[in-house]
């Protein structure tokens, strides 16, 4: 008896630590299954954003359906879902995994098992996924597949024998990878005749058709004309189109149990079809929604302000548009005495924040001021209330403050043993509590610390990389709130506190932090016609100060016939530059000054 479509379907993700060659492997698979013609083939097809290609990282998950004729002579339908490899985007990985039965786990044959390899394996195992380990980049001269296999056994607990050796770059072993996917990953279960249950695992916004929801059908059928209901939100829509992912969207007659595809149903906002929602048939609804999974929780908040206050409506429009494609972003209007009207935005991490800023500036041509990122603190007040504080400027006054709590993470660092010392020093230096250390049979050591999240979002990752010559990798998960001895550090320019420069810091670090802060701030300000005093204060106590002497010379000495136009243009440029700065009191403060608080070590 021929195999049914369901039996010939394989839904799988590719997961990996960043830079281990995930997108390259995806490209080779696309080529080998002729999903893309030679002509359309360009590097890393699935990374669609310019930014993704430039930075060489995958930010958004994306899916594609392929057909593959296996050695058993059958033609299989493979739904491949690419996932991001950066710790900031772990939630994207978790939602992609929910749509699959298996995952290709890519491990770099040179660098071996890394922190996100482990984190992603945990996510996949939690979802009950079958893993196909692939040791990639075997073509490199310093590749060490045997060591990678050993680490696979020691650290992850999968037999090294199961790993497929490949070089995605050269295309070697890719056929073997596909065979293994077909043989080892089970076909999707589910009953096509049961009531509809389809999980939304991603979406994007199309300006003409509204939300395109990416779904995995668990049970039942989904077809145009059906009335569907969002089980959590209880909202109903009529299905206009269903389809599968080829290089674009390809409509099909129906999606049934086991299928991965998309639904268009006149949904206007991302909030009406959030990721994790279960779609059912309004006419004969399922009894239960599918189990949801880890929702995106913004961890890092910062103020985003237009440099020109008149650009506020443009910023609002840009946030609304980008928000349609970014389920993890949150934003709320806020006002700063120093910066005017803007938004407090929540991000998954610093990379997410940086990418978002770049998109705002590049795609919407906005000049922005970003305040230093902050975590969410919990302020316990004397009257017994608990306030969530995502902006240091909003911390209740010392007279009303009982104590503060901050979020902590469990950080896993994997490093060659030679760098254990520097890694531990860094963690201690960042208020870390040592938890454990494990050695593998190879040179790899796994160190676990609990650390305040606030210490991680500063320059922890950069420091870790520089202290270990790039060899250590990091993953972390939030483990909850703990009380800390924290204080608000204010910055005063010529005696006036600047709300947008306030930071919350551990009291024992306040002095040092204050010193660095005013020093760095000093470096970003240009001299002006009068003296500028910069001070850092804890409450009313000044703990650090710097001064900037008045400007003594700014004139270009000579100016003759030929120079008039040039001189005028120069003055016009200077004036435009001044306009891009923020005036605080009568001091011109450039954009980058607001991020000086980011870097705490020189």
């Amino acid at each position: 008896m021929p195999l049914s479509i369901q039996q010939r379907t394989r839904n799988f993700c590719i997961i990996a630590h960043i830079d281990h060659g995930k997108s390259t492997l995806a490209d080779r698979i696309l080529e080998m299954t002729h999903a893309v013609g030679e002509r359309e083939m360009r590097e890393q097809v699935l990374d669609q954003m310019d930014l993704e290609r430039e930075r060489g990282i995958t930010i958004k998950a994306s899916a594609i359906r392929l057909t593959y004729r296996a050695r058993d002579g059958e033609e299989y339908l493979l739904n491949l879902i690419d996932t991001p490899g950066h710790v900031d985007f772990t939630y994207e990985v978790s939602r992609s995994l929910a749509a699959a039965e298996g995952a290709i786990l890519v491990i770099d044959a040179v660098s071996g098992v890394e922190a996100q390899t482990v984190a992603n394996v945990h996510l996949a195992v939690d979802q009950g996924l079958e893993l196909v380990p692939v040791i990639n980049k075997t073509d490199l001269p310093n590749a060490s597949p045997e060591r990678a296999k050993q680490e696979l056994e020691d650290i992850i607990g999968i037999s090294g024998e199961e790993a497929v050796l490949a070089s995605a770059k050269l295309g070697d072993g890719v056929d073997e990878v596909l065979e293994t996917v077909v043989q080892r990953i089970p076909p999707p279960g589910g009953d096509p005749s049961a009531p509809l249950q389809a999980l939304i695992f991603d979406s994007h916004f199309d300006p003409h058709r509204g939300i395109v929801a990416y779904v995995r059908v668990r049970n039942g059928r989904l077809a145009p004309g059906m009335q569907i209901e969002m089980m959590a939100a209880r909202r109903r829509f009529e299905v206009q189109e269903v389809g599968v992912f080829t290089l674009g969207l390809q409509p099909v007659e129906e999606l049934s149990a086991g299928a991965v595809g998309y639904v268009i149903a006149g949904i206007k906002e991302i909030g009406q079809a959030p990721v994790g929602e279960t779609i059912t048939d309004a006419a004969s609804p399922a009894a239960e929604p599918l189990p949801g999974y880890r929702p995106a929780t913004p961890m890092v908040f910062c103020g985003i302000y237009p440099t020109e206050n008149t650009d506020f409506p443009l910023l609002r429009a840009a946030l609304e548009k980008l928000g349609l494609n970014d389920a993890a972003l949150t934003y709320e209007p806020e006002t700063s005495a120093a910066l005017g009207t803007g938004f407090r935005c929540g991000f998954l991490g610093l990379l997410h924040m940086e990418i978002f800023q770049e998109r705002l500036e590049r795609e919407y041509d906005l000049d922005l001021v970003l305040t230093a990122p902050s975590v969410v603190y919990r302020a316990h007040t004397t009257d017994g209330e608990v306030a969530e504080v995502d902006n240091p400027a909003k911390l209740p006054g010392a007279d009303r403050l009982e104590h503060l709590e901050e979020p902590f993470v469990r950080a896993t660092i994997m490093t060659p043993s030679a760098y254990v010392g520097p890694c531990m020093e860094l963690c201690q230096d960042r208020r870390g509590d040592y938890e454990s250390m494990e050695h593998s049979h190879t040179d790899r050591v796994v160190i676990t610390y609990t650390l305040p999240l606030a210490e991680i979002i500063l320059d922890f990752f950069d420091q870790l990389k520089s202290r270990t010559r790039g060899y250590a990798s990091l993953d972390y998960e939030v483990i909850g709130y703990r009380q800390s001895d924290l204080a608000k550090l204010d910055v005063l320019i010529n005696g006036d506190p600047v709300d947008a420069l306030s930071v919350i810091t551990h009291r024992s670090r306040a002095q040092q932090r204050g010193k660095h802060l005013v020093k760095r701030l000093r470096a970003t300000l240009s001299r002006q016609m009068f003296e500028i005093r910069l001070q850092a204060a804890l409450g009313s106590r000044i703990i650090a100060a710097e001064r900037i002497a008045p400007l003594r010379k700014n004139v270009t000495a000579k100016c003759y016939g030929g120079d008039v136009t040039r001189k005028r243009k120069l003055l016009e440029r200077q004036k435009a530059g001044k306009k891009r700065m923020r005036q605080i009191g009568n001091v011109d403060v450039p954009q980058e000054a607001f991020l000086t608080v980011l870097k705490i070590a020189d």
Partner: protein
Amino acid sequence: MSRKKPSSPCSRSPTEGGALGLYVHIPFCASKCAYCDFASVPLDDAGGMSAARRYLEALFIEIDRRAVSAEFHGAPARTVYLGGGTPTILPRDWIAELLTRLRHRFPFEADAEISIEANPGTVDEETVATLLAAGINRFSLGVQSFSDDVLHTLGRVHSASEAREAISAARTARCTNLNLDLMFGIPEQSMEEWQDTLAQAADAQPEHVSLYALSVEPGTPLACGISAGDLPPPDDDLAAGMYETAHDMLTHAGFEHYEISNFAREGSQCRHNRIYWADEEYLGLGASSHSFRNGVRWNNCADAEVYTEWIGRGRLPVARAETLSASERVGEMLILGLRRAEGVTSAEIAARCGSSPEELFGEEIAQLRQEGMLLAEDGALRVPREKWLVSNEVLLRFVG
């Protein structure tokens, strides 16, 4: 011609269409200095000399074409300025030929000021005498410094003793109007060195001294040296101190500090440069020169070879032209006029532009007066002397 006549953007003043300042650019030097980003070409071989000759021929054509054009026909020259580069690197008879050509096309007024820039090492007594005989009456010597170390940093080809020789050669040949160019704010230049240079300059008793604060232009060898860490970047505070020292020493020696970077003995202010600062009209000839006539500014292409080629193809060498709006013109008159000790009068500006500075920049002027950055006395606006070095702060308010 690649530009249009202005459609009277601002009312035409009686001074327009009259006598001119003529500037002629000679873009050749013995070698390129470390700080130079001007359009100049090292002239070190026979091939260079023949290129220079072709350039001169092209210059003659531009002179002829401008002289017969409607806007310049018959216009007399009040001043002539041969600048560079190093004009004195050309053979003396070429310079005489150039002056003859100019005088023929633009009748020189009887008391016309006729200047030439000269670098020490390129002029001896005989050269000066020949050029005086050819009509030159003002020499501007690019001394820059009397310290060999500083000259070395600048990449100048001459030495301090050659500078002294050039001065005495000029005097022996009876040059009666001599300017010395000096530079300060140079990496590794000390205050003591600067004081010594100023003292030697004052002792030489020139009629005029120009001071330039070094500005490091991107792409020059000097800029490269600084970014590579071989030289310290210029120290603005030290440069400010040097400027004040120069003011004190030179005014004490009897010079009037009549413009931000210029000092003169009584009756010896540079008339050519005063044309620029008063926003009066001038015609620039040669590569990279700038002109201003009937409310239009234009500049020629910067490159000498391109210039020669364009002229050879029968086109004017104009690279860009702009017609100033009334408010731009007022802004420029302020930018230029406020460089002078006496400042600029509102009446002068209103007569030229049709609008007064108070009408266009009333708020800015009031604000600047309040900040003590601007004085308004006897109908003139001026920047107080002690604020000259930060006058960009004032000028910024009058642009775009």
